[in-house]
């Protein structure tokens, strides 16, 4: 098996007295979709934000292409080519689509001013490649978009950059059937281009259709890390709900301790 693009080892994260992540290991391979599944509150979003550099891990090691790295701020992750589509989308309602897509990484003219022409051009190309049909104008404010359109803008924002790893936190939650199809196709396409993709989803059909590996989180612990082809729907559901399934999963004692 190839070396993981991104690897997390033993990541702990607490908010005050509440420990949310317990020694989490995660491997993201190039060209593969890793599905991250778990019940609400299992710690999926927290894990993603730790990789993004928004939260600082209390313990644990991070490796990118085998080399140890640290994530002290959002720029660290971005500079390694790690992009995140957040569950809450993280869009500014008062800015337009182009301005949101380039937020914090604006294209500049040689005189250090905003290069609106380049940004609008690239935003339009990226959106077009995602087949966004219903957007009236890329200069529309994000406040005027529907839930699905906002989600698409958030995804477009992540694929605009030449990223190596893309983490998508429930990207299809607000989408209709057709748009969900498009996002799943996109997820697969990104992986086929050699990116490491992490997909968080509650929809088991989607997970099984698109993923190569599945990592199940149970109350902040990794219950299992399996190849999608080696497991099945009911086993994953069991791992999500009780943390174990047959011989795999975390021991009952550990599960109770963290409950």
């Amino acid at each position, binding site marked *: 098996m190839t070396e993981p693009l991104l690897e997390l080892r033993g990541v702990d994260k607490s908010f005050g007295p509440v420990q949310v992540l317990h020694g989490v290991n995660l491997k993201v391979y190039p060209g593969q979709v890793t599905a991250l599944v778990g019940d609400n509150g299992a710690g999926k979003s927290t894990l993603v934000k730790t990789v993004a550099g928004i939260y600082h891990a209390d313990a644990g090691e991070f490796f990118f292409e085998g080399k140890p790295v640290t994530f002290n701020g959002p720029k660290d992750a971005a500079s390694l080519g790690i992009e995140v589509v957040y569950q809450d989308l993280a869009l*500014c309602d008062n800015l337009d689509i182009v301005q949101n897509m380039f*937020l914090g*990484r604006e294209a500049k003219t040689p005189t250090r001013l905003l290069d609106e022409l380049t940004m609008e051009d690239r935003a339009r190309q990226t*959106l077009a490649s995602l087949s966004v*049909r219903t*957007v009236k104008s890329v200069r529309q404010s994000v406040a*005027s978009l529907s839930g699905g359109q906002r989600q698409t803008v958030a995804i477009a924002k992540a694929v605009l950059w030449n990223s190596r790893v893309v983490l998508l936190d429930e990207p299809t939650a607000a989408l209709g059937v057709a748009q969900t199809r498009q996002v799943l196709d996109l997820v697969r396409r990104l992986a*086929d281009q050699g990116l490491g993709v992490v997909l968080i989803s509650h929809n088991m059909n989607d997970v099984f259709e*698109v993923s190569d590996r599945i990592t199940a989180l149970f109350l902040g612990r990794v219950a299992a890390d399996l190849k999608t082809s080696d497991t099945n729907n009911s086993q994953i559901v069991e791992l999500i709900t009780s943390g174990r399934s047959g011989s795999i999963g975390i021991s009952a004692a550990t599960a109770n301790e963290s409950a």
Partner: protein
Amino acid sequence: MTDETKTPAPTSASPSLAASDFSGDSANLTLGESLRAYVDRVRGGDMGALPAIGGLVVLFIVFSSLRPDTFTGALNVANLLVQASSISILAMGLIPVLLLGDIDLSAGVAGGLSAGFTAVAIVRHGDGWVLAVLIGMAVGAVIGLAIGLLVAKLGIPSFVVTLAFFLGLQGATLKLIGQGGTVPVRNDVLRGITIKSMPVVTGWIVVIALLAIYAGLLFWRQRRLAAKDLHRPPTSLVALKFGALAVILLGMTAFLSKNRAPNPLIFTIEGIPYAVFLVGALMIFWTFIFGRTGYGRHIYAIGGNTEAARRAGISVDVLRISTFVICSTMAAISGIVSSSYTGNVSPGSGGGNTLLYAVGAAVIGGTSLFGGKGNIRDGVIGGLVIATIDNGLGLLNQAAYINFIITGAVLLLAASVDAISRRRRSATGT
């Protein structure tokens, strides 16, 4: 899971196909489309500068019909513009703070204290006006830095920090100037900002040159956008807006170029007051900063969604501090202009209505108190509205209580419009 599902979907891979999917996005708007887009924006609660400009027109009609002999005279109009200048400068300084959803209640008295330092530097220490102004602005900047640190680093609400500064800074001014005392502004340049006007010929040259440069920039931008087929307003609309601006500016220049002295045979008072150019220069500068630089873009982003801005790697705390520094430094300039008009600085300078007028100006101009929405020019347009009300009511010789009630009502009206349009924004957005 079957193998087929993992093959990349061929859809939307080719640009030509994608472009057709994207046909809804028209870059070149017609006049009708822009009008419809504007109506959409108004429905969504964003009215831009039009209500304030409309209000200004109504106020001019009302006051000139009530006081036809005095209100529309060139002498009064010039005076009105000078009255508006210190309000507008303070309002422009407040707008970055308001964009982040913060408030600076101490800006008025910070301006008073800064102007006090400037006047004292000239009168007591014999400093030149340049150094004195720099001292005043530095005092403003330090005040803003202190407020910003307390708000951003300690997390005290700006309302509370600046209320404390509102009281404390008045004490500092009292200590500097002394109970019951005043410090005169004894410098021809500083006095000249508000009591002198630019020579008529120079004034014409500056106004025409500015209009020519602006027209050139608009035309160039339009050409570049068209060349890449990017989103742009119709050229006819750009020309229409520019035409209206040119007519107003040239008309005002002609109007103020007449001799407006009460006794024209003995005195000559003509030309545009220097204060108007100062306001114009500051407006152009800050509009540029907030419209064309990454810094300005990030300020808007923080005002729209602080967490999203932080996740985009923007240093939220540093930028929040910077808005308070801008605000207090602009307040210092406003205070100096105000002292130029009154001729002195007293312990009460910058107190009273000063701050309320400036906040009112920003809000009337269209800046939201909830953050994220507003433009630098709002401060100038709103400042003109406030100064017109103040000036017109003054000419009507109403009892002072009526002025207070009317000005308060106008401020409340503007804030209501802001609150209602915000509700509309969140109702139309999802």
